[in-house]
Structures are given as C-alpha cells and as structure tokens.
C-alpha cells in the first residue's frame, strides 16, 4: 500500500484508523498518566526513560506493553518518558467487539489511539505507598511477636479504586519479597477467573501488567508466571442476595482455606492477607454492615482501609478501631484493629454498564480462549519472531443432559411453587441417587469423604471444621437439582464444575471449590442434549455442576 497516491482513494472517514504516529509523553516525578483503551482496540506503551509503574508493578524499560479494554494509570516516582502507539485493532473470530456496546466509535482520537488520556499531578500514591510501608512495619513487628502478618480489608463504594489499591499493595509486597494472599470477594469482577467467582491466590511473582492480575495455570508456558487461584462459585452479582445466606457460608469456607494455607505456608503467614470487597457492601445497603462484620471476623482482619467514604469510615472507626482482632492469638498478643481512611484517586472513573459487561465477557473469553491481545513483553529476549500470544484451544462437546447433575440456586424470594426446597427431593431422577443426601449434614464427618473423594484417606482438619457449619444452615440451602428436560435458558450461560461428587448434599456442593467452567453453547431440549465448551478436551469430569443462571451474564456467540 505504499504506492504513491493510492491512499487518496481511501475514504476520509477511515483516517483515524490509520496508524497514529507514536506520541511521547513526559511525566515529571510524582505524576501519573491516566488512559482508557476501548475494547477492540489496542494501545502499545513503551517506557523510554525513567521509571514507571502500573498499579505498583514496574514497567521494564524498552519493552512494549499492549493494552486493550482497560482504564488504568501509569505512575512515576522519578519521572519518565513513555512512548504511546496505537496498535492493531483486535479482530475476533466472530466479529465480537464489546467496545461497540458503548455506542460510539471505539477508537479514540487521543494520543496513540487511547479513548481518553491525560496527565494528572494529584494522586494518592504517597498514601498508598505509605500503607505498604506501614504494612511492612506491621509484618516485621508481627514476625517479632510471633503473630500472623496483617490481614487487610479494603472497603469503599463502587469505582473507588479498591481493586487498584489491592493491586498496588500486592505489587509492592511482591517487590519487597513478600507473598501476600489476595482474596477477591467481589463476584461482579473475577480475579484470575471469570465473574461470579470468589478467589484466593498467593502472589509471589509479578502481577501481569497487560492482563489484569495475570493468568491461572494453562497446559503451556506463560511469559509471566501463572498464579494458582482457589476458586468458589457464587452465581449472583449481589452478595446480599437472599440475605447473604449463600454468600456468607462461601466466604466462611474461603476464609477457612486461606487460614489453612496461612498455617502451613510460612511466607504467606508472615505477609498476611489482602481482601478486596464488592463496592455494594460499602454503600449503606441493608445487611452490608453485617456482611462486613462477617468478613472481618472470618478473616481476622487487622487493618481496615476505607477509600472514598467518610460515612463508612466513621462507622468503621466506631465499631472496630482499636478493638481486638478475632484471631486466635489476639488476646495473647494484644493485636488490635486499625481503621485508616484513604483518599480516592481522582483517576477513578465510573465504569459504565456497557464497559463492565465487556470486561466480564472478556474475562470469560480469556478463560476459554486465552489472551485476545498479543503480549509482546517477553518476546524481546528470544529475539526470534515467535509470538507470545497465548491461544488456548477449548474443546466443544455434546453431552447428555440426563448424565449431568446440574444444580441451581433458587432464592426463596423467587416465587416458584414447584421449586420449594425439600432436602429429600435432592437427587431425584439421578440414576446414581443413593439417598445419601437425606441426612443433610446431620453427621458432618460422614460427608467429608464425599467432598474430597480423591483424598478420602486424609480428611484434613479443614474439611472437618468447615462442615461444622453445615448442620446449622444445611437445611436451608436453596440449591436444587435442575430437572429435565434441559431448559433452554441454559444456553449461553456458564456451568461451574465443582469438586463435589454429583450426588453430594447441597451444603457440600455450595461449599465446594470449583475446578472450572463449561459454557453451554446450545440446548436441544427434545433430544436432551447440550453442546458445551470445556476448557480441556476429554471427558467432562463427573461432578456436581452449578448453573450460573443469572450470573455471570449471558455471553452470546462464544462458540461460532
């Protein structure tokens, strides 16, 4: 296309799509460059001089980082020069361009093809960094006193920068040679997984700069070390749904696993936990404070960071500041909770419904198909032209609906006569029904082997204690097996594969961590067949499946 005069024939409307010349952005020390990149477009950023970090993770000099579908900020402590360059538009196989949901043309006209970008001089980075140093101090003290490292809870309304703060604290912790366990309790956005999940992950290696938090393990190598999350499924956006009676026990279970890890993993014990929460808890909704209290108790929170809510801060100070933590050793070591107020960054932008939907779709897509954006960060070393694009090959397969044990949460508030919960109905129609569900957790120990069939010889103390809560609310778990014929609503939704066996009792299924997801491409109700996309080829594991009927929201056309 370099023939002279040829470009004259191109319509002028396409002009913005021609590669914009690289823009150089100079940041003085203590400032940050905030940028938004729409889905479907990419922006390449290169650090030419100085130092720069994205949410605490430092950019390597002279490496090209590619961003797509993100709103982020690059901060510099020392001043830096960045080169910003519009990348290629991402062309998905089926023309899926989530950016289009924003209505307007996706590609922005700002520097390097960003949707919007500007340099900000006022940032709360000094505060955020000092929180890290304060945590370091607490870690040193805790080690000297024989306590666990600080357990940090981050609270604040939606779009206040909670996850960004969690990333910064994690990144600085990792940089200081620590290994924090990061817990995501926000089901509206996944961490290392799809939306609708609650996860815990120990971070020892760098957070991926381009891909949110990074990637969970794949069968192949990854340019940035993979992170190993522990994943639970909570198929609703609102943690307070059904008075939190589903969310609450899952949080307890997750906390229990985290505490189990802390007890055994010295690095994590010294570093502590960072808990990111859904904004809705901090927005004065009924039950929000109770849920916060539940989280504080379960994770033995020692430090509460409140961003951007004066009101919540004063409530937290009143209720928790200088109170003993709930950890077992709190009495002996006089460990007390501190509540700290943090400024909200001016860079926090409201992420509109369309953008959030696109983020979620992209997370689901990434789970099955891998990075949609070529990552060039680490290809420089090899100097060969190998692309570091990690493309995953999921496996489409046809399943017999009746062979699946699909469960669905039926909140009691939903008025569906036939769906009234009855523990004795559990497993009806299941050919492998053994009646084991009848007990509903009367004797917790008898169910432990079922929960962890592969490790039945060693029922860890974790499971035993975890199930102790089952008898209390075991009878009220609104989890019901989806009866045949296959409902057409299954199409375009996700099924979570739990680690629980197909005929496990409801509390066990609810509390089970999950091993992965199936995407239902389409449903043939008459033949009783469903076509699903599985991340891995081979037989779909015979486990209890939980249907994400309402959450995460439908993704249309994941499979062509």
């Amino acid at each position: 296309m370099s023939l002279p005069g040829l470009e004259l024939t191109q319509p002028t409307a396409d002009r913005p799509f021609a590669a914009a010349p690289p823009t150089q952005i100079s940041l003085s020390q203590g400032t940050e460059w905030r940028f938004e990149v729409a889905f479907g477009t990419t922006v390449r950023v290169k650090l030419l001089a100085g130092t720069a970090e994205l949410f605490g993770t430092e950019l390597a000099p002279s490496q090209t980082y590619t961003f797509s579908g993100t709103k982020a900020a690059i901060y510099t402590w020392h001043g830096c020069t960045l080169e910003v360059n519009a990348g290629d538009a991402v062309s998905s196989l089926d023309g899926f361009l989530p950016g289009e949901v924003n209505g307007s043309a996706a590609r922005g006209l700002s520097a390097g093809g960003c949707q919007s970008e500007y340099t900000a001089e006022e940032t709360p980075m000094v505060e955020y960094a000092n929180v890290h140093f304060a945590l370091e101090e607490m870690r040193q003290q805790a080690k000297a006193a024989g306590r666990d490292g600080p357990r940090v809870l981050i609270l604040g309304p939606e779009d206040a920068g909670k996850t960004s703060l969690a990333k910064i604290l994690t990144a600085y912790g990792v940089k200081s040679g620590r290994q924090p366990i990061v817990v995501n309790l926000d089901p509206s956005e996944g961490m290392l997984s799809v939306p609708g999940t609650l996860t815990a992950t120990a971070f020892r290696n760098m957070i991926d700069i381009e891909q949110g938090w990074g990637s969970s393990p794949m069968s192949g190598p990854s340019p940035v070390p993979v992170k190993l999350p522990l994943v639970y499924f909570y198929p609703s956006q609102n943690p307070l749904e059904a008075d939190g009676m589903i969310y609450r026990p899952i949080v307890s279970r997750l906390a229990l696993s985290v505490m189990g890890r802390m007890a055994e993993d010295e690095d994590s014990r010294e570093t502590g936990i960072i808990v990111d929460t859904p904004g809705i808890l901090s927005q004065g909704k009924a039950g929000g404070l109770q849920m916060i209290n539940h989280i504080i108790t379960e994770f033995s929170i020692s430090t509460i960071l409140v961003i951007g809510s004066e009101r919540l801060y004063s409530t937290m100070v009143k209720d928790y500041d200088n109170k003993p933590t709930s950890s077992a050793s709190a009495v002996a070591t006089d460990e007390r909770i501190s509540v700290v107020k943090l400024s909200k960054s001016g860079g926090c932008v409201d992420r509109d419904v369309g953008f959030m939907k696109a983020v979620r779709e992209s997370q689901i897509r990434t789970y099955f198909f891998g990075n949609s954006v070529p990552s060039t960060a680490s290809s420089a070393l090899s100097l060969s032209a190998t692309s570091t694009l990690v493309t995953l090959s999921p496996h489409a397969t046809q399943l017999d609906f009746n062979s699946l044990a699909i469960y669905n949460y039926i909140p009691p508030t939903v008025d569906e006569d036939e769906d009234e919960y009855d523990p004795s109905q559990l497993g009806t129609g299941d050919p492998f029904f053994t009646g084991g569900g009848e007990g509903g957790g009367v004797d917790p120990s008898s169910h432990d082997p079922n929960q962890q069939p592969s490790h039945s010889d060693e029922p860890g103390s974790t499971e035993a204690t975890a199930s102790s809560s089952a008898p209390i609310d075991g009878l009220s778990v609104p989890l019901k097996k989806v009866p045949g014929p296959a409902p057409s609503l299954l199409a375009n939704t996700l099924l979570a594969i739990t680690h629980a066996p197909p005929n496990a009792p409801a509390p066990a299924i609810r509390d089970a961590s999950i091993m992965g997801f199936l995407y239902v491409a389409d449903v043939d109700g008459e033949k009783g067949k469903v076509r699903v996309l599985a991340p891995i080829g081979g037989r779909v594991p015979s486990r209890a499946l939980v249907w994400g009927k309402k959450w995460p929201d439908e993704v249309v056309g994941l499979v062509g």
Partner: protein
Amino acid sequence: MSSGLASDEVAEDYKNSLEDLTSNDRFQISNLTVIAKENTEHAMAISRVLENHIRTTPPAQKLPALYVVDSIVKNVGTPYTLFLGRNMYQTFMNAYTLVDSQTRKKLDEMLKTWKESVPGSLDTKPVFPPEITRGIESALIKARTAALQQQQARSQQDLLGRGRGTGTPTGWTNSPTPQTAPRHPQPNVPRPNNNGHGYDAARIPPQTQHNSHQDVDLAALNRDIDSLIATARSDFANNPLDNSVQQRLKALLDLQGILQRQELTQEQLRLVRDQVSALAPAPKPVPAIPQASMAANIPPVSTTPVSNILAQQLPQAFQQLLNPGTLGELLKVTAARQQQPTPPPQNPLLYPKVTANMNTPPPAVPTPAENPLIAALKARGLLPATPVPTASNPLMPSVPSAFPFIVPGQVRYTPPISTPHAINASEIKLGVQMNTVSIKIPQPTLIISLYEARSNRCGTCGRRFLTTEEDKEKKARHLDWHFKTNQRMAEAAKRAQNRSWYVDERDWIKSREFGDDLEIPESDAQGESGAGSGSAAAKKSLPKQWIRAPNDAALRNTPCPICQEKFESTWSEDVQDWIWQDAIKVGNRVYHASCYAEVTKDGPAPARGSTPLGRTGTPDSVLGKRKAEDNDSPSHVRIKTEPSL
C-alpha cells in the same frame, strides 16, 4: 571452493539458517553441522558465512554461532579446520571482547577443547593446529592482565568520584572559620586568620599565580566529560554486561551531575579536571597516570602559611565530603588510596602532617561542635544533620554492581541520588504507622527501598533485585527462567494449549508458590519428551520419570496396577503442566516407575549416559547432546566416547 552460483546459494541458505540460531539449541547446531558436512565442496563459502555471522551477530548470539564452528570442526574436520582456522584469531577475539564474562568462561572452555584431540577419534592431532590456539591464548592472557589493571584504576577513580558526590560542600571556602588547625597541633604553622575575608584574600594569590592552568575552565571540562560519557556509552552499548563499563559510565554521569550543580570549589574542579584528562585516553589501562598527571598539575606549594592552610584544607574538604558517621572506618580502609588524589605535598615538612591529618580517625567527628566548619555547613543546611541512610555504607563489598543496570536508551536517566547502595529491606527504618495521619507524610527515603536499593534489574520484565550475592544468584535463576520459558513458548506454539482445571482446597493449601528465582533441583534434566519411553534412558543419572497427568478424569483416578495406589498430580513449573512424578506409561497403562522397575528388574535402566546434561551450554554438554542425538539419527557423524567412560 569455486565461487560459482551453487556455492553462493548454499552460502545464502546457510546464512539464513544461522540467523535463526538465537539460542544454544543443540538441534539447530547439529542440523547446521550436518548441512556443513554435506556441503564440504562449499566449505570455503560456508566458513566465510560463519565468520561473517559471528562478527555481525549480537553478542548474545555469538556463543551459539561459535558452537556451530566447534561442532563442525570436531565432527567434520578438514577442510573446515583449514578455512576456519585461517581467521580464527580475529573471529574468536572479536567475539570474546564483546560477550559477557559468563560467555567468556564458556569460550575459554571451548578453546581448551580445541587444544586437545577430538574425543573418541583415532586421530591424536588437536582440533585446531596449536599455532592458532596458542595465539588466541596468549592474547587472552594479555587482555586479562590489562583488564585487571584497568579495574584497579577504575576503582580508585570511582572512589574519588563518589566521594565528591556524597556531600554538598558548596563554598566551604566561604565559611568564616577555617579553624581546622587547632585540631592538629602544628607548632610550626601560624594560626590561620579567623576572619573569613582575610582568609579569602590570602587564598587568592596562589590562584592567580598559576592562573594559566589552575583556573578551571568549566565549559571545557564539561565538554571533556561529555565526550567521555559518549565514549563510555558506546562502550556500554557494545558491552552492556561488563560491570566496569557500567561503573565508569555511572561515575561519569554522577560527576557531570555534580558539576552541573556547581557544587565544587576551584580546587576540587582542578582535581576533577586532572582526573578527566587522565581518563581521556580511555582504554589504556595505565594506573599510574592519574597520580602522575596530578602531581604535575598541582602548583608547587610554597611554604607560606597561606598555602600551608590550603594544603591542609584540601584533605579536610575530602573529609567533609565523606559521611561523618563512617569516616573513621572509611579512612582506615582507604588510607592508602586516599593519598592519591590529594595534592602531593612538595614541602617535606608538611607532608607528614597532611598524612597524619588523613590517617587519624577524626576525633572531632562524633562531636561536630568541635569542628566549626562542619557546624557552619550544617547550619546552612549544606551538610545533612544526621547521616542519610542511603549514604551509610559507601564501601560495601558489592559496590561495583551497585550501579543500576543502565540499558541503552535509558542512559539519559540518572537516578536522583548520587550513591545508590545496597540496602536490605530489613535495614530500612520504616517508621510508618498505620493511621490516617502518618500515611500522609511523604517518605521519599522509603521509596528508595522499592527502586534504587534494588538496582539490579531484569531487562525483560523489569523485576528488581538487590545487589547482594544472594540476589545475584536469584537473578541468574530468574533469567534462566525467562530463557527456558521463551524456549518453551516457541515449542508450545506448535501444539494446542488449554486452561488447566483449578485445584481443590487441599491441593491449594498444600501448594507453594513457585518462585522463578528458586533453585529447581534436578528438574533441568527432564526433557519434554520424558514420557517414560526409551528416550528416558538417555536422561540424567537421577532416574526421575514423569508423565503429563491425563486430563481424563477416569484415567486420572486409575491407580497404579502394581501397588494400587493413586497417582498424585503435581504442578510442574518446568513443563507448565500437571504431571505425575515417578510415573511411566507402558502400553495403555500407567505404572509407578519405581514399581515397574521393581517388577521388571532389568527394565529401563536409567543411568546409561551420565553426561552432565544440564543447561550449562558448555562445549562438553553440546558434545553430550550430540552424542545422544547420534543414537537415533542415522547420520554418519563421528561419534565420540564420553571422557568419563
């Protein structure tokens, strides 16, 4: 030999193949060897291509290319030894000067093998005629001696430059009370005038007296430094891994910064200028020059009281430049070196006094009140009232590597602090409390712990390491990880990948995060194809056998038919997949390798070749690998026996 078309084509082909060789890949190397063997009629062309390639390829890729040469001369021999031997001296030395020290070690090892006969061959002649290897060797010895001298010169240079950087003694001459004399009882020396003006006035004469070469032309000096920096940069670009070049560049940049801040007095400038002019013939390692040239440039010190003070004042200035807290220790260590930059006293009477002045651990320092000069400086805020933590230990043993790894393109940036030191995270006094007030106070010194203190950077991902020995090893392993990952990424691109299942609670609790900087014992030896087949026998002495854990849940739960125990999946960072350790697949069944060996006894004997197959990339291992390849490739490459057999 004929430069006909065919030869050109072969050469072109060979050139292209060589360009694909970016890492020490034994398959590519043996492939290139086979091509060379099959085209002996074009040996001359191929040899030229090889030489050209080694000359032009980036330093990081010189080693694999030289391994191709090594492989060819050992496996094919003549006529390649003839053609390649002709220019071997230039080829080898060019490469040697440009690669980092690790690669040099490997080149040394390779050179050693060239002096011996091809292992396992009947021919007892060395690989290359001794004339060739001897020439290279003696050149290397010379270079090494020179480098050693150069390093010594640098370290002195460095000390001087950094000494200036630590303090900010602007205008010490203006301080009203140069009363240093009282501390050093010198009956012969009259008390200096307590009046600052009087002192200044008295100070002028020697300056004007030697105006011609004493007044330092700042602009000229800056120009000189600029050109030195430019040279150092290009050196650095050519040789980014050489520590001494880095240091030198860093020192020069620091010096430039100090000059631009106008913090030096005339005397100091003069010394700087002398140093700079001594540096000008840069690559010549003549340690004596700085001293000599300085001596020549220092004006003859007269015996007048004034110059006496001057001579005394100068070392005094050096003392102030150094951090008071560590001065005593520093002086002890560097007393000998410190004498170099001081003006060589012409007056024999004065000499011992000056030396005494410098060698005495300054008793005044712990009680600064005794030293009015320092007190005055402090009062003006020119000297820090308390030692800044960053300047606490200017003589760390790891100083040479304390300089940030400056990447070309980043050289414009110099960290704002003048003395980057290794600070252990634990050494830093944090002092930030977790409360709303405390976290609002900016803590620039703590930010250093995240950046400058970790000046040893990975160029690929930007990860920072401390400059301690421990962290250097970590970095080496980290770089290894990048290297291996990149290799695997290239391999993995050829087969389909997929997302792994998430682990269950128990596995997660038991799992430990993989650190790419941790030692992975023995896992290097596990090849990608170690699927328990015959090829596994060629593996390392440690008979670790594993297979990828099957994805099929049914297979996954099938126990070992012999012991009836289930297999345990572990995540292998090396393979980036779930694997079963100690497992072997025979037919369609999976056994524990140990069970299977027990039952079959003479089963897959694990340790046949005990060649160190680690990724050391030394010629030895290349030979070993080549040998392993010979087993299944019918090519008639000369087979060598192991030295150990």
